[in-house]
Structure formats: structure tokens, C-alpha cells
């Protein structure tokens, strides 16, 4: 027989003025299971809590009901008090008679009193069905996995590793560095991208707590927060990195030329290559799709010139496993293909290029030695038109959102053009100039004033060819006129888009993604780096378009979160999660389908004790379950119950009124 104690709070005048508290206590005393009922001015005060503690001992209470303010307010306080009295803290129930009665029925004391009585009756009924629950402790593997070796991944890995936590950094290309390595100078300070990035890349390579696995991809992730197991596929590089010294003899002698993706195809690289001179690790890989030896079995020059014998044509893809406790996803962004802009002659006019192509051209280490040139005839352009929002904010052809960085990098390009070609003239067609950021507006002003770049508000309607010039026709909306500019080159500020591989990666990790393919954060404002899956965090443009400062900030935030998880030997979790009664489970797996956290898997159990034959039943992963109860509601045989909100507890509440 349950022995319930009820403690009704006056909350000063807050409750007592509108609810006849002594009458309520008398009413409650009539409930069979209630062995003790009392009221006090402030239950949450120390003497108030002492009343509860004393009563638990004196009346051997099996559960406690506090009728006071909302459980969202003081549930934790009273749980602690109950716990200190030696009772399991989850045997406490709160009847919310302040927010739900005294404050909302101030003109009807009779009804408010009656309602308070009912609310307490419900809480008493529920508490009778309460069970002892214990905080869940989940062991933690203190190693982090960072997916992606761009600036986001590099920053997160360094910050975590600096806290003496081992990091596995997986990069899909042969070198870390990512998009930032492709950039020339960075806004708004125009400091050289390579100069600030390369030291960090070297730090990663030499850090004792970082295991760098380049030219690899994560192909599987099992487990839950603190206890993940990652499968990583190391792509065959055909070069034994432990023997290779990075001398570069092979890349010089290789006869096969392939468009260089690092330079946006402006120049050629070899079939055996390091993506760029400052690559980390500075070891070449063989591109199996173009290598004559691997394709036709003829050539073998690189093997001949390699003094160390590091070339191994028989190398195969290899899958390795790492046990980890948390994941930072930092896979970066791709660029929108402007092909749908047929009216701009994309694909037909060679001198209509994208902004990243322009970026490579003006890069001192780029394919043109830092000078912008027209791809059609190799001449240096004098008049360059920059068009912003190519694909961004364009529902018809591209995507709806703003890519956030194009305004700034276009201003940067206008300045860089002026730096490289002093007698040049730049025009920028824009929809809006969005320069929110420290020093950003000033930077745009600098482009406009210092370099004399003409900013034209309006869209370009057409580009056509006149001789070897590109005629750019657009609207100057501020003048209300059509303008035509005779340009040597047109640069399209193409939108940032997520990699097409994002949805597959999200499914693999068990996290969600939005309609564009960006990975989704748990809450747009208050949990911007977490995902809905505990222990997986997002950094950089894989979550949404952002610039380098924001990316680095988010990466460091991820590192702080990861370090938080690893701060203890075990993770403590709220015990109010679902549990399966295997006797009742028939294994239909509909719960697996509706669980938003992939917290439900299946297990095989013997049909009867000791039997060899097995049947499949659902199994809740304690580490992953967040306690929403979706599974409990769809379980037809009621094999799943949500602790703290069991069917019995809720039905008790319903029938007690």
C-alpha cells in the first residue's frame, strides 16, 4: 500500500489568496493513500524542505506530492530534498496549483480551490505508479573524430587536442587545408590566406594528440555518445607514405596531364600529384582514374624515379576502425554550377568565369602567377564586371538563401583586381550589399572609394559578344536605366551549396539535414553546434554558409562541447527514457521507424528460456534515447513504456478526477 505525503505551498499570497489551501489539505486527507498532508508558507524554503524530509522519515512515505508552482520551476529542488531524506528522487510528483490554478482563476476562489484539489488528486494518483529511477551512467571513450580537414576541422582538432584529448582527423582529399587553402587573401584584412593557414596545418601534422588520416572517408558510425565506433576507408594512394620523402621526382616525371581541380581546372596537374605545394601531408598520391600504369599496365615511370621505392601499384583500399566518443562534422561546402545562366553565356563564353576561378588566378601561387587573364586569349582584362547572387537568392534557377560571403569576397576581388592590374576598372552588379561583420562595411567602402569600383544596383539581363568584348547589359535600378558595359571579363559570384554527399553522410551518422542538404543543428538559436544526436557536432559550412571567422568560432565551440563530454569518466543522463518489455514485444519494429534518434535497434532473444530458437525484439539504447515517448505511443502491445510517463501513470491521472 502506497503511503503518500502531500505538501501544499502558500507561495506567500500567490496561492493562498486565491485557493483555500487549508480546505484543500482537508480534502486531500480523504484520499485513501494519503498518510500525511500539510501546508506551509514557502515549501521551497529550507524550513519548508525540512518539513518534507521530516515527514518522509516519520510517516514512512513511499512517495511525495508537492503542490506548489510549476514543475518546470522547482522540480529539481524538491527532488533533491526528497533524495536527501533517503527517498528515490523520482518518487516525487508536483501538482502545479500556482500557474495552473491560483494565478489563472483569481476571480473564482471556489473553482480554483476545487481545481487545486483535483490537480493534487491527479498527482497523488500518478505518484502511486511512480517507480524508483536511477540516473544513467554512460562510459566514455575519450577520443574525438573530426570529419573534414578544412579550416573548421583543423581548428576543432587543434582545440580538442590542446586539451590533451586524442583526435582522429579524417580528410577525403590528399591534403588538409580545404577551401581556405585555395584562397588568395582574406577579407576584411587582406591577410594572405596561406600565411595564416599553413602554420595551423603544420601544427595538425606534428601534434602528438592528432592522428591525421588523409585521402580517407568515414563510411560507418555505430554506437552512441561516448561510445561510437567509426569505420574509415583509406583510399589506395599507391604511395607508401612511410617511405616517401616528398621529394617530388615522381610528379615531375609523370607524363600524364589532368585538369587541376585545386586550380579550378585552369592548369594541369600530373596523374601522380600533391594538390598544392604547401600540402600536409606533403606526399603525392596516384590518381587511379588517369594513371597509365593502373589503367593500361604501361608506364611505371614514377616507380623507376622513386629512389625510396615508395610507389606500390598493388595497393588496395583499406578499412580501419577507431573507437571514439564524439564527432565533429566539418565537411565544408561546394560551389553552385552556374550553367542555368544561359543568358550570361556560361559555357559558351570562356571569359565568363566563376569567382573561385578568379581567386585562383589572383593567387600568387596560382596557375597564372597572380595575374588575372582572359581564358580566351590570355590577355590581361582591363574592364571586369562582377555579378553577385549567382544562384543565391534565386528561386527560379538556384537556391532561395543568401550565401552570406559573396558580398564580401566580391569587394575583395574588386580590390585585388585593382592591386594586380592598376589601370583596370571594376563594376559590381548587386542586389544588396550585405556587409554585417566587424570591419566589413568599411571594407566594402574601401573597394568603392579606394579602388573606384562602380557598384550598380540591379541584375544583369544578358551578356553577348561584340568582337572580343563581352557586352554586359543590366539595369541600374537606382537610375532606372538600362546600362551596357563593354567588359573584358565577367566574374560570377556563385552560391555556396552543401556537398551532394551530405545527405548520405547524414544518414550514415544518423543526423538530419535540411531541404538543401545542409546538416541540421539541434536548435537554430540555443544549440547551434549540436545535432539532434548526442555527441555529434557541426562546424563550418556543412551547417550553413558562413565566413572564416564564424567558421573558426563554431569549430572552437564544437571543441568546447567535445571537451565537456570528456570532462568526466562517465556521462550522466536523465533516467526518464523508454524501456522495452521483451516478453510483450513482437518485433514489428514500428518503433524503430518513428524514433527520431535511431535509439532503437533490435536484438535476438531465446523464444523461451534456454531455447536455441530466437526471436527479434526491440532494444532501446540508453545512451541515445532522449525520452520523447514516440515509441511508447506507437507500440500496440504496450511493450515499450516511457519511464516517468508510463501508461499506468498517465491513466492513473486520467481516472483519478
Amino acid at each position, binding site marked *: 500500500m502506497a503511503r503518500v505525503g502531500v505538501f501544499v505551498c502558500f507561495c506567500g499570497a500567490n496561492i493562498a489568496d486565491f485557493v483555500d489551501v487549508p480546505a484543500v489539505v482537508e480534502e486531500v486527507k480523504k484520499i485513501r493513500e494519503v498518510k500525511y498532508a500539510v501546508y506551509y508558507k514557502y515549501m521551497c524554503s529550507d524550513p519548508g524542505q525540512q518539513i518534507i524530509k521530516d515527514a518522509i522519515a516519520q510517516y514512512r512515505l513511499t512517495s511525495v506530492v508537492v503542490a506548489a508552482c510549476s514543475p518546470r520551476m522547482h522540480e529539481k529542488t524538491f527532488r533533491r530534498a526528497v533524495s536527501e531524506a533517503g527517498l528515490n528522487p523520482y518518487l516525487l510528483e508536483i501538482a502545479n496549483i500556482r500557474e495552473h490554478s491560483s494565478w489563472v482563476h483569481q476571480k473564482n476562489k471556489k473553482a480554483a480551490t476545487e481545481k487545486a484539489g483535483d490537480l493534487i488528486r491527479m498527482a497523488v494518483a500518478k505518484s502511486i505508479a511512480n517507480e524508483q529511477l536511477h540516473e544513467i551512467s554512460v562510459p566514455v571513450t575519450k577520443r574525438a573524430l573530426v570529419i573534414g580537414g578544412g579550416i573548421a576541422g583543423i581548428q576543432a582538432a587543434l582545440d580538442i587536442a590542446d586539451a590533451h584529448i586524442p583526435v582522429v582527423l579524417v580528410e577525403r582529399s590528399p591534403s588538409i587545408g580545404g577551401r581556405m587553402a585555395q584562397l588568395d587573401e582574406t577579407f576584411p584584412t587582406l591577410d594572405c590566406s596561406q600565411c595564416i593557414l599553413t602554420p595551423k596545418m603544420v601544427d595538425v601534422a606534428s601534434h602528438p594528440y592528432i592522428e591525421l588520416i588523409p585521402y580517407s572517408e568515414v563510411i560507418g558510425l555505430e554506437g552512441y555518445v561516448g561510445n561510437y565506433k567509426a569505420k574509415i576507408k583509406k583510399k589506395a594512394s599507391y604511395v607508401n607514405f612511410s617511405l616517401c620523402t616528398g621529394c617530388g621526382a615522381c610528379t615531375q616525371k609523370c607524363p600524364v596531364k589532368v585538369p587541376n581541380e585545386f586550380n579550378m581546372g*585552369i*592548369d*594541369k596537374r600530373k596523374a601522380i600529384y600533391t594538390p598544392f605545394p604547401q600540402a600536409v601531408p606533403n606526399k603525392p598520391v596516384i590518381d587511379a582514374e588517369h594513371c597509365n600504369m593502373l589503367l593500361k599496365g604501361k608506364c611505371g615511370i614514377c616507380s623507376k624515379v622513386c629512389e625510396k621505392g615508395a610507389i606500390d601499384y598493388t595497393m588496395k583500399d583499406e578499412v580501419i576502425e577507431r573507437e571514439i566518443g564524439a564527432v565533429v562534422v566539418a565537411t565544408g561546402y561546394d560551389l553552385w554550377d552556374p550553367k542555368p*545562366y*544561359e*543568358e550570361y*553565356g556560361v559555357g*559558351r563564353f570562356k571569359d565568363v568565369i566563376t569567382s573561385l576561378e578568379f581567386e585562383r588566378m589572383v593567387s600568387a601561387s*596560382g*596557375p*597564372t*602567377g597572380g*595575374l588575372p*587573364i*582572359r*581564358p*580566351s*586569349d*590570355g590577355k590581361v582584362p582591363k574592364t571586369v564586371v562582377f555579378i553577385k547572387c549567382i544562384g543565391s537568392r534565386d528561386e527560379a534557377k538556384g537556391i532561395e538563401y543568401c550565401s552570406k560571403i559573396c558580398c564580401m569576397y566580391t569587394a575583395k576581388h574588386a580590390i585585388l583586381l585593382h592591386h594586380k592590374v592598376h589601370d583596370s576598372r571594376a563594376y559590381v552588379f548587386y542586389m544588396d550589399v550585405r556587409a554585417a561583420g566587424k570591419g566589413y562595411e568599411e571594407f566594402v567602402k574601401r573597394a568603392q572609394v579606394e579602388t573606384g569600383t562602380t557598384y550598380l544596383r540591379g541584375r544583369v539581363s*544578358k551578356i*553577348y*559578344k*561584340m*568582337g*572580343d568584348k563581352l557586352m554586359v547589359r543590366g539595369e541600374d535600378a537606382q537610375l532606372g536605366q538600362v546600362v551596357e558595359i563593354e567588359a573584358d571579363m565577367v566574374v560570377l559570384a556563385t552560391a555556396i551549396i552543401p556537398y551532394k554527399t551530405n545527405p548520405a553522410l547524414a544518414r550514415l551518422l544518423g543526423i538530419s539535414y535540411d531541404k538543401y542538404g545542409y546538416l541540421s543543428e539541434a536548435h537554430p538559436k540555443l544549440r547551434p553546434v549540436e545535432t539532434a544526436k548526442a555527441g555529434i557536432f557541426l562546424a563550418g559550412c556543412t551547417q550553413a554558409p558562413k565566413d572564416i571567422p564564424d567558421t573558426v568560432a563554431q569549430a572552437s565551440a564544437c571543441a568546447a562541447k567535445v571537451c565537456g563530454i570528456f570532462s568526466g569518466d562517465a556521462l550522466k543522463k536523465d533516467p526518464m527514457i523508454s524501456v522495452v518489455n521483451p516478453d510483450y514485444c513482437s518485433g514489428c519494429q514500428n518503433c524503430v521507424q518513428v524514433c527520431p534518434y535511431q535509439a532503437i535497434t533490435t536484438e535476438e532473444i531465446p523464444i523461451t528460456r534456454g531455447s536455441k530458437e530466437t526471436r527479434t525484439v526491440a532494444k532501446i539504447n540508453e545512451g541515445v534515447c532522449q525520452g520523447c515517448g514516440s515509441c511508447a505511443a506507437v507500440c500496440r502491445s504496450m511493450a515499450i513504456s516511457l519511464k516517468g510517463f508510463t501508461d499506468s501513470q498517465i491513466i492513473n491521472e486520467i481516472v483519478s478526477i
Partner: protein
Amino acid sequence: MTKLTYFPGCSAHGTSEEFDHTLKLVMKTLNVELEEIPDWNCCGATSAHVMTENLALSLPLRNLVLAEKLENNTMGIACASCYSRMKSTKKYMDEHPDKAKELTSSVIDEGEYTGKVEIKSMLQFCYEEVGVEKIKSLVKKSLSGLKVACYYGCLLTRPKGVTQFDSPEYPMSMDRIMEALGATAVDFDYKTECCGASFSISRTEVVHLLTGKILEMAKEAGADLIVVACPLCQSNLDMRQPDIEKHLGKKIGIPVMYFTQLMALAFGYPEKELKLSKHIVPVEEALSNIGKVVETPQQPTKTKKAVPSAESEAK
């Protein structure tokens, strides 16, 4: 012999008689029988939809209902404007069957609309249903040596959601057909530019400006003549040319022909069948280029410039 429902539109019996005539010749060679919709009416063109929505929908809808009675799956439309009106109406009706029911029961007394007939422009029909390969196989007299600029105008490929045909900005279907006939289709940036047709009567100076630009650009691209698939384009580009020349103060003199005229010519019909006398800008000189050897490079803008050779420069 396949049958095709034919909607000629008002101009086919007037200003674009040569289009209508050569179209019929071409279809004969392609073994397609044109079945003209009996008792067809005006499509409403640019005038109806500024009046009332119901009028703008009812006029084409009546034609669509009549077309369904002919039991051919496809209807070919000669005029680009008619094509646009009919196709937009069809799209609207297919999406709003209630409206179709309302109009067929109240305004139009010709039976129900089911939406079973597909609508294609004649250009689209030749490109999609007949195909470039078949056209190529039927050529008796190659048009090699003739350089043409294909002008599509605004309505044949736009709006994309309605026409569902070719690229809205840089279509190539007519160019491909011309190449099949042996002619050289020049790279023509103005192929979908507006000719100003709507201001044809009210503000001719707009037409002069816009059409003038198209003509100049065709000339610039090195074309001997402009090929069109729309009667309104033809009349604007051809008929207005003397006025435009006066307006610009320079001679252009580029003839404007229907793609069907050139097809008929290539299919072996004699020149007199092309009704060349209907043209304002004489075409004979342009056609005399047929058979001449094309010198390459024929055009500065078309030449392939040396690759920038970024490597050499970087080194």
C-alpha cells in the same frame, strides 16, 4: 502517313502566306498530313488578355475543344503567338479542371474539354517528332555555304514552365535543323531577344530600336540571312527593315526567311515555290551563297583562340 492537327492562325492566310505554303510542302515530303481544325477562331493573341481573363481563356479553349474532335494526339501550330496562347491555356485548364468545365458549359458550346491533345509549335514538331536525322536523310539539295542566324523570338521557348521545349535562353533546335540541311548556323547571342512586336503599331520607335539591334547583331555574327519560325518575327524583322535602316542611318539588308522555306528548298522544291516575292528585303543574293565554299575562319568571334596557356605564362 501520319496525321497532324493543324492550327494555322490568322497570319497564315495573310502576311505569312509563304510560311503556310512552304510548311505544307515540307509536311508533304515528311509524309505528314495536316488536318486543319474546322471552324477555328482567333487565339486572342495579345489583345484578349488585357480585356478579361475569361475571354483570353475561352478563345483558345474553343480551339482546343475543336481540336480534340479530330482524334489526333498532337496539334501543330504555325504562329508562335497562337502557340503561346494555346499552350498557356492548356496548362491552365489542366491545372484548373473546374474552370474548364465552367467555360465549356457556359461560354463555349462545343462539348467537353479533356486535355488529351498535345500542343507543339511547328518547329518543335519538326525537331521532336520528325527528328534531325530524318530531315537530314531527306535533303536533296544541301544548303552548304549558307550562313544563317536562327532567331527564335520570345514565345517559342518561353516561359519554360509552359513550353517545356528547348532552352529558354539559348535554344539550339532550329540551329540543329539548319545544320541538318547543310547550312551553317552562326553563334547568335540575340536569338531570343525581344523584337518589340507588342509596340508594333503604337510605338514603332521601340521596334526600330530593338529589332534594329537584332538585325545588326545577326549581321555582326556573319549571317547571310535570319531564319525564323514565327510570322510576327518575320514581319517585324523583314517589313520594318527599310524604316530601321532609315532610323539607324545605315544599310543592313539582311533577308528574313522561315525555316520551312529553307527546308523546302533543301528538300528539292524549286525556288519559285518559296514565294520569295513576298519578301521586302530581297533574298536572292543571300541564297546565291549556297554551294560556295565556306572559308574558315569565317568570323572573328567564332574563331578558336589559342588556349590561354596558363602554364607557359606561369612559368
